[in-house]
């Protein structure tokens, strides 16, 4: 496809830092890009074309993991960190005094190609600070990936940001070159955005999101008619929300996410625990570090929405706006709806199996396949991959529970949360042992002062 952008143009905006060595530029612009969460290379299955370089695997491939445990799948860099905006939470805001740098399109292409052929990365994730104006920035991004696709014949994964406020034509051009596009929602509500990102407006963010959604839809219709029609954002679009910078509740965030999945056809919503890098007075101080557990619970709930058939209002409501710290959202839902349990593994429909804590999508499928040929018992479930230590309170096999369990909310919550009081398992998950007089799990508890006194006076 010719999008009318010539790759070999001299780039006039770069004169100032042309002398900066590549090592320093990579350093500055990686550092500037690292707070962006999305680093997935999934959603596109594309064979190599036998000529250029690269292919795509639907599941995505993570090539390394950094010291914070997050995957390194794509070369995640900014085109430039010379931003004209002044968002309070952002490290690259114009009022912050940090070293600035800008890549030339050729530098980005060479880096991507050389990293890719050494199997370091799965592709490129290109984002950018706003240089001059949104449309100009988007044009630069577009020029870079055009070069990468057409001059360097790169056939791997490309994820680019759609810059809010850029002209729709440029966004469309980028869409035909990239595999995934994303527009960051940044904050769940318009008020939060107004407070912390004065240059961004919710309307500006949602416009390109809607445009990409319509583009994908139209492209799918085209592809039905013409098999070789150019493909538009095949990997779908994603977005990101910062968690913990503004006072929104989990209920609010998960509702926004559900709305985005349903109304905007998003592939993924990412949640980013807020890290205070700027120390602005409008931002909360986080003495305990970023809200990682909250982020984790949101991701768990996100999976429940997308793959397990849950709805946001089932998980939380106005009266209980935050997720339980001790239980994961699925356990939490299950103990509040004990009326629907226990579930008979050999007969229950798959959508009910999916609601059992400890049963994932794969194990539910395997259960359904396996119970066609034989009656399943608890040992078989273990083989299939069900996490029995969570599931046993909610399931029966052939009408029996594994152990006698009281179907009572308090009891089950205690069992699920208290490590020590859990029914003990051997390393293989199944163990039977002789009952003994000292089997009381309270036996290892240290003796309290009162008990010592009572023992001394002969009461115990």
């Amino acid at each position, binding site marked *: 496809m010719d999008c009318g952008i010539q790759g070999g143009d001299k780039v006039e905006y770069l004169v100032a830092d042309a002398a900066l060595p590549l090592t320093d530029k990579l350093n500055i612009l*990686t550092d500037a890009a690292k707070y962006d969460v999305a680093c997935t290379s999934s959603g596109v299955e594309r064979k190599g074309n036998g000529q250029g370089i690269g292919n795509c695997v639907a599941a995505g491939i993570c090539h390394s993991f950094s010291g914070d*445990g*997050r995957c390194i799948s794509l070369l995640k860099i900014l085109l430039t960190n010379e931003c004209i905006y002044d968002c309070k939470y952002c490290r690259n805001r114009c009022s912050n005094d940090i070293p600035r740098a800008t890549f030339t399109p050729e530098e980005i292409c060479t880096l991507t190609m050389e990293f890719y052929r050494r199997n370091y990365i799965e592709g490129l994730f290109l984002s950018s600070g706003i240089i001059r104006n949104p449309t100009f920035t988007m044009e630069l991004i577009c020029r870079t990936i055009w070069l990468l696709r057409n001059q360097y014949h790169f056939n791997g994964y490309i994820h680019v940001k759609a810059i809010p406020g850029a002209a729709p034509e440029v966004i469309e051009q980028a869409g035909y070159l990239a595999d995934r596009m994303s527009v960051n929602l940044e904050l769940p509500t318009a008020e939060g955005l107004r407070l912390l990102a004065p240059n961004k407006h919710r309307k500006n963010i949602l416009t390109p999101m809607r445009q990409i959604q319509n583009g994908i839809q139209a492209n799918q219709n085209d592809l039905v008619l013409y098999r070789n029609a150019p493909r538009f954002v095949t990997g779908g679009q994603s977005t990101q929300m910062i968690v913990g910078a503004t006072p929104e509740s989990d209920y609010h965030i998960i509702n926004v996410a559900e709305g985005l999945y349903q109304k905007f056809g998003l592939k993924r919503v990412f949640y980013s625990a807020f890290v205070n890098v700027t120390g602005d007075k409008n931002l909360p101080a986080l003495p305990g570090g970023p809200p990682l557990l909250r982020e984790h619970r949101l991701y768990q709930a996100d999976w429940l929405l997308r793959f397990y058939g849950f709805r946001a209002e089932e998980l939380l409501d106005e009266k209980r706006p935050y997720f339980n710290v001790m239980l994961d959202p699925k356990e939490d839902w299950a103990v509040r709806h004990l009326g629907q349990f226990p579930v008979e593994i050999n007969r229950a429909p798959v959508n009910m199996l999916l609601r059992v804590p400890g049963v994932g999508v794969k194990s539910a499928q395997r259960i359904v396949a396996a119970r066609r040929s034989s009656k399943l018992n608890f040992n078989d479930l273990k083989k299939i991959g069900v996490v029995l230590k969570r599931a046993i309170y909610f399931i029966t096999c052939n009408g029996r529970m594994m152990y006698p369990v009281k179907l009572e909310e308090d009891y089950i919550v205690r069992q699920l949360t208290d490590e020590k009081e859990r029914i003990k398992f051997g390393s293989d998950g199944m163990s039977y042992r002789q009952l003994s007089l000292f089997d009381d799990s309270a036996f290892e508890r240290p003796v309290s002062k009162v008990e010592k006194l009572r023992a001394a006076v002969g009461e115990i």
Partner: protein
Amino acid sequence: MIVYRCETSMESIFTAVYRAYEEKRVHEETIISLTEEPLLFAEDIWVEPDERKVCKVINTLNRRFGQDNYLTLCMALASEDADSAQAVYRTIVQGLAGNVSKGHLFDNLADDYVHRAFALARTVNTEIGHQKQFLRFGELENGVLYSRIGPKNDVVVFLMPHFADRLPMENFMIYDDVHNLFGIHPAGRPWYLLRGGETELPIHLSEEEIRYQELFRQFCHTITIEERKNTKLQRNMLPLRFRKYMVEFS
């Protein structure tokens, strides 16, 4: 009790499977063994690979169970465990007897042998996935991309199609130092495997290579968010045994 003694190769095992059917054995009393461990009151039969029989077995497996399940069986056989042959043999028997339809060979996970073959194939598949993630190429002075890996199972044969599709115009070579096996891909031509050969090749990396290794190391270091540091999670996702082959950890 009949014991077919095979060498550790797919050809040998498939020949044994064919012979078990050809000689009308009772499957419950037949074992395909990869070791030489003697069994009491058992009759040993040593199996020589036979190309014609192997082809027939492969055709039947593909026709009856479909290509995906056949590939899963191959993965189970690539495992280093000594009971892989027996598990695969009995899985095939179970599938042929039970008349399972295409793609449903591994449905009956309650069966011990099916589960064992499934688990072995899953282990090998995970290893293949890991190698696709963590394998690193280094450019030699003559422009050839060279990679050295140390997989637990024999997975090079499963890696080659992936990288040949990805880098069709590159000369590259993957060396498995545990099984002493080379996977070689000449630019623009089909790949092939080479067992044995010279193991202590002198490796001269190009100057560009050292520069890009340094750039990538720096990239991995910079992208870490200090506030979220979690080396335990990193170790879960990227086990230590892979790290000695990876540029960013050396």
